[in-house]
């Protein structure tokens, strides 16, 4: 696979939360505002990138039987680092993300990419994959958060532009998360199905 493809497959075609359905817990919980989504996306991308690098460097050294606990230790180290950095430099973000920063360690995306990619490929490819998946995850988080924040709180990144009377409160509460994610996923699948159908039609017509 070409290098550019490795990087960009995480954005749309293999978007970790909308297509691969990984990392659902943070997707539902932190998307109440775009700022939180960006913060969570950045933290997860950092952990994904660094753990991919280290695991790819150590892939020939870690014995196969104990690889999952080793990966968990490596990932947990970076998550603790990120947790302390965010607590120190952006305490407001730490307050609003709460328990979901330590939960990056059990985010299926991080362990999944380590298992599926980093322990089979070189360091540079793993960097691209980590970046791609992380950015894709951030894109999906921001998309969902944008819908929820605009409809539910009438603001975008903290700047209110719809008066409070017109806010549909359910979108920033628990059910709204499920509904928005469900509809956005359905929309994406619908678009992908349409594109696939068109491509099949073209191929048949060309024949």
């Amino acid at each position, binding site marked *: 696979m070409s290098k550019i493809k490795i990087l960009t497959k995480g954005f749309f075609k293999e978007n970790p939360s909308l297509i691969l359905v990984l990392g*659902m817990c943070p997707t539902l*919980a932190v998307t109440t505002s775009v700022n939180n989504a960006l913060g969570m996306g950045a933290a997860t991308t950092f952990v994904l990138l660094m753990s991919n690098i280290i695991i790819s460097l150590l892939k020939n050294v870690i014995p196969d039987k104990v690889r*999952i*606990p080793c990966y968990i230790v490596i990932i947990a180290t970076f998550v603790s680092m990120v947790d302390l950095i965010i607590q120190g430099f952006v305490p407001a973000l730490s307050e609003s993300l709460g328990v979901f920063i*330590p*939960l990056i360690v059990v985010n299926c995306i991080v362990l999944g990419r380590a298992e599926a990619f980093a322990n089979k490929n070189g360091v540079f490819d793993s960097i691209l994959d980590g970046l791609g998946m992380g950015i894709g995850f951030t894109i999906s988080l921001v998309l969902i958060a944008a819908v929820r924040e605009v409809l539910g709180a009438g603001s975008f990144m903290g700047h209110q532009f719809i008066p409070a009377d017109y806010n549909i409160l359910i979108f920033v509460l628990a059910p709204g*998360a*499920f509904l928005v994610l*469900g509809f956005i996923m359905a929309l994406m699948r619908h678009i992908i199905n349409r594109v696939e159908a068109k491509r099949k039609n073209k191929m048949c017509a060309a024949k």
Partner: protein
Amino acid sequence: MRLYENKPEKIEIMEYILMLIGAVLVNNIILVQFLGICPFLGVSSKVNTALGMGVAVIFVMALATLVTSALQKYVLVPLDITFLQTIVFILVIAALVQMVEIMLKKLSPSLYRALGVYLPLITTNCAVLGIAIKVTEQPLIAAHGFSVIDSTIYSVFIAIGFTVAIVIFAGLREQLELVEIPKGMKGVPIALITAGILAMAFMGFSNLV
């Protein structure tokens, strides 16, 4: 906060019942706190498997919280190394579940056949680690000195809430199988929308406790 002033040394039965209602209905782990969504979406297609998953979660959560709350109270806090909480907790949970799986395979093959499949799914999962970390935020537990027994009981209640939610959801999904759904919605999207409506129903409990 009059409830927590002049507190007795031990939590009374009434407070436990309030804790139960709070954990199962008001702060349901899946529908309100968003922990454990992956097994919720993955294992809830039939009521029987959902029930099996729920029981496995109760078991794992009780065991994990027992050990991690003891570690937190007697090792991490006195030695002032709480920044190691994430690493220590996840390693303990992973090791514990691995041990439990091996023991279960040896001691009770029938129980292993019923529950064993779900154990790896629960280990690397938001639910167990999330509750292990969050149990210290429960005001009732904090007010009574973070007792290990109380934390374990609270986590069992939370896991009961998980079981309730997942079994109800499995029932709904079994019905969904019989209906015609648009192509883009099949599978996860319609499940999420159903979960959203279920979450809306649970919102009715929100100020009960």
